[in-house]
C-alpha cells in the first residue's frame, strides 16, 4: 500500500504492508535512533513525533501517518546534541540505550509545558523508562537545560 508522509522535513512516498508499524517503517528508512525496547507499549524508547506530538512508534500503524509529518531524533540533531551535552555533564547518559526516546520526549515537553515544576517534569517523562539510573542525573540535566534556556520554575 502507498504511504506518503513528510519525514524529518522531506516529503516521500513508499510502499508499505498493511501491518507495518511506524517503528519498522522508520528503521527501514535509516532512522536508527528509533528502537523498540519493551514490546509492551510501555518504555518510551520508540518515541517519535507525529504531527509534532510524541507517540509510541511501536504502536502506531505506519499507514496512520498518511499525509502527516513525522520527526525522529535524526531530524532534531542540533537540538538533541545541545540537550545531550547537559545529560553528559550530569553523568546521566549512562549506557545511552533509553536516550533517543528520552531526548525526543524532553524536547516535546519543552515545547508543550511552560516553566514546568519538578512534579510536572516527572509526570511528563513517566513514560520513559531508564534501565540504569535513578533519574536524578536526568532531572538535574533538565533543570539546568531549562534554566539556561530561560524556562524553569
Amino acid at each position, binding site marked *: 500500500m502507498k504511504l506518503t508522509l513528510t519525514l524529518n522535513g522531506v516529503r516521500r512516498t513508499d510502499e508499505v504492508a498493511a*501491518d507495518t508499524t511506524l517503528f519498522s517503517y522508520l528503521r527501514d528508512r535509516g532512522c536508527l535512533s528509533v528502537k523498540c525496547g519493551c*514490546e509492551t*507499549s510501555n518504555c518510551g524508547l520508540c518515541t517519535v513525533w*507525529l504531527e509534532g506530538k510524541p507517540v509510541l512508534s511501536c*504502536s502506531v*500503524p505506519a*499507514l496512520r501517518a498518511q499525509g502527516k509529518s513525522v520527526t525522529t531524533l535524526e531530524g532534531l540533531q542540533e537540538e538533541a546534541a545541545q540537550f545531550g551535552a547537559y545529560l553528559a555533564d550530569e553523568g546521566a547518559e549512562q549506557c545511552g540505550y533509553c536516550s533517543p526516546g528520552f531526548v525526543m520526549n524532553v524536547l516535546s*515537553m519543552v515545547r508543550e509545558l511552560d516553566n514546568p515544576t519538578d512534579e510536572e517534569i516527572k509526570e511528563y517523562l513517566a*513514560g520513559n523508562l531508564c534501565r540504569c539510573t535513578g533519574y536524578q542525573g536526568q532531572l538535574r540535566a533538565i533543570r539546568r537545560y531549562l534554566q539556561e534556556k530561560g524556562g524553569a520554575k
Partner: protein
Amino acid sequence: MYTARNYVVAASPEEAWELNQKKANAILGGGCWLRLGRRRYDTLIDLSGLSLDEIRLEGDTISLGAMVTLRQVETSPLLRESFGDYFSRCTRHIVGVQFRNCATVGGSVAARFGFSDPVTALLPLGCQVELVKAGRIPLEQYAAMPYDRDVLTHIHIPLPKYGRPVYESVRNTQTDLPVLTCAVAREENGLAAALGGRSGRPSLLRGADRDGLVEQAMKLSYVDNLRAGADYRRHLAKVLLNRACAQLEGGEQL
C-alpha cells in the same frame, strides 16, 4: 504483534460497520492494546477519517468522538471547565504522554477493560454511547453487554448537575495498571460509584449515601493476582469510596 493483510480508512461509519461484521477484521483504536496480541487479521479498520477526534459541547452534553486520545481527554479545556481535574486524574497515570497520545477513549470504552481508568470514570456520570447500528444507549447498559460487532462512534457525557464527581485510584508503581479504580458522582437521589480493577468489568453501584455504597462494595468479588490480593483490593475499595465521598461532601481530604 498482530499481522494484517489489508488496511482500510473507513469513508463512513456504515462502511466501518460493514467491514467489522467479518470476524477476521478489527477496528483499530490507538493500536496500543492490539499490538500486544498475535492475532492474524484480514482487514484493519481505521476510523481516523471520520472526524471522530473532536471533543464538542452539544447543549448540556460533552461529546467525545471515539478517536479522541486519552491525552486530549486529560488536557481538554472544555472538560476541565465543567469537571475540574476529574478527567485529568483518571488519565494522567496511564503509562506515559506518548501512550496517551496514541490510545483512544473509544478503544478503552469498546474494549471495556476491567482495569480501565476511563471506563471507571465515565460509568457513574450517566453517559450514553453512540453505536452505528444500536444508536444511543446508556453506558451502564453497554458496559455490561456481551461484545458484539457494532461500532462505537461517540461517548456523550452530561454536564454535572449535582456537583463535580471525584476520581481515586491506587497503583503499585507509577505507569503500572491500577490495583483499584474508584469514581463517585452525585445523582438526583443519592450517589453513583464505579469500581474497577476488581475482577471482570468495572461495576456501577448506587446508594443513598456513603455507607450504602461501601456496604455494596464489600459484597463484590475481588481478584487475587500479581498486583494485589483480593482482601487488599476489598479494603482499598472501602478506603477509596470513603475518600471520594468525603471530597464530594465538602472538600475533606482523607
